[in-house]
């Protein structure tokens, strides 16, 4: 009886750890996105400071490709939107994950209690 509970416990524990890893992954991805957002914001602002007389280049691989200032601005704006959308998505994901991990935690704790009780009983018996 105690062994069965123990096995269950271990299974649950592994699941829970997996969940935690996923959560942390999403967290780090989200943090990256945050950094990109700030960067793109700065780029946007600096592009606004420049005028059309300056040539704007985009680095694609090893090549610097000339870009139109307006085009560059539009591109940067689009990128910003995209990144924000991604952030929203990740947030939703994180929430769900948190809930699931909570549930798992509860299951885990209840199993632990059972296990301890079983242990106690076993000791008593013996």
């Amino acid at each position, binding site marked *: 009886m105690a062994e069965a509970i123990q096995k269950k416990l271990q299974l649950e524990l592994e699941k829970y750890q997996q969940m935690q890893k996923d959560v942390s992954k999403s967290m780090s991805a989200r943090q990256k996105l945050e950094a990109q957002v700030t960067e*793109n914001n*700065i780029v946007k602002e600096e592009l606004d400071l420049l005028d059309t007389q300056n040539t704007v280049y985009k680095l694609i691989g090893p090549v610097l490709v000339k870009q139109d200032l307006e085009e560059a601005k539009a591109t940067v704006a689009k990128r910003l939107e995209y990144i924000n959308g991604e952030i929203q998505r990740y947030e939703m994901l994180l929430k769900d994950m948190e809930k699931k991990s909570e549930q798992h935690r509860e299951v885990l704790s209840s199993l632990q209690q059972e296990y301890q009780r079983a242990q106690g009983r076993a000791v008593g018996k013996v």
Partner: protein
Amino acid sequence: MIVPLKLLNCSKNSFQKMISPCLGHITNVKGDYEVLEDRLKTLPDKVSYDIMVPFGPLAFMPGKLVHTNEITVLLGDNWFAKCSAKQAQMLVEHRKKHVQSALDDLHKTKKNFEARVGFTEDLEKLSDGKGGYVDIREELEGVVCKGKRRVSLKPHSKPKTEAIVKMEEEEEEEMLNAEGSKRGVLSEEELWARLDELEAQEQQEEELDRRFDSADTNGNDDTTSSSSEEEKDEEGDRPAERSKGGTTMPLNGSQVDRTALPPRDGGKEEQEDDEEDDGLPTIHFSHTVEPKKVRINTGKNTTLKFSEMKEQKQQAKRKKNNGTSNGHSHHGLHITSPTDIYRLFVDVKNGEPVPRKSILKSRSRENSVCSDTSESSAADFEERRTLGRSPSHDDNTYSDTGSAITEEDAPTGELPVPTSRFQAFSGTVVEKEPIPLSVPQLTIAPPALPTIPERKLEEVVPEAPQEAPQEAPKRVSKFKAARLQHKGP
């Protein structure tokens, strides 16, 4: 308290680890930008510069720096822009702003953290008991309620027992006397028995008061109700009972009270720093017992505030003094609080000490129309009543402070009452308004300290010898009253 220490160290270390590299990094970045700005300023000064160009990691080559005004700036995210030195400068300025804001945020978090650390350090000191911190504890023994007469038998037992238990602890620790130490070990059952006794007393007194109530306009109902409210409260009951006529506390109870009292009677005084279990010096503060303040509608859209405790204590005092009134200042009075000062300023009129309205005013003014404090005439009552309404706010302060005194004086068998001879107020005040009985009618015991007789309620305390209640059923304006007064005598 080991835990907070650990927390403190952990949090300190972790935060330092986090914040110092960040701070360092950002300050470096800022420095770099400033250098860059300087360079940009000077660069376009010459058309070309002769420089040593780095050639790999180990060698340099002489060369020329041309196009000194054309600067390709990395805007971020793989975007570049070719601009002049001045424009580059503008961009650098813009970036520096961002860096500065980041730096400021970091500083803020650092301050917050430092504050937290400070708190935990304080907590540490507190737990050690050496840091000069003193715990001031105040045991709540009566629930201060405003409003109408309350139904008795409220379940106050729990908080009161806590207070009682605490008091017992204090007694144990203080070891006032052999008795005290013994009493300190009193079991709770004895306290409960005491409670029951008190309850029985309360009921008796209620009956008594009900009988008197028909005679008086204001009866003692409120005091009884208040005392009944405090049924479960030993400490609270004690003053109430003492003030009640005739009923004295049973001996054994009084003994308990005696020992229990001193810590409580400490009142505002600071008790010795008794070391509690957690090693912290403690000051046991107990508010002057002034649990009941009832608003009485005097019909003119004004309400008067009452403090029962004061009355009760005054009753008790009167009981003790039995008519000996020290008209003028009792110089044996030991002044420990501002209220004591007020007590000194007492006039004697008609053989009874009467509180002076203001210790700043001279005696002569008090005989004038506007500040007549004598109690002899009915007209005076009117004046005082109308006048008394104005300094109502003073009364509260008086009552609060006064009750401290009264609490100190609250007589048990043993405690000497230095001001006992002093009757500030005859205590017979007539309520002019036909106030319905539903409104709580408090009876005022003569205030222990000369408070302005704001309330014109008459109180007849059954046990205390008093002047004849001064009847003034009809309300008269103060000016009219003054006129009458001048006319009459």
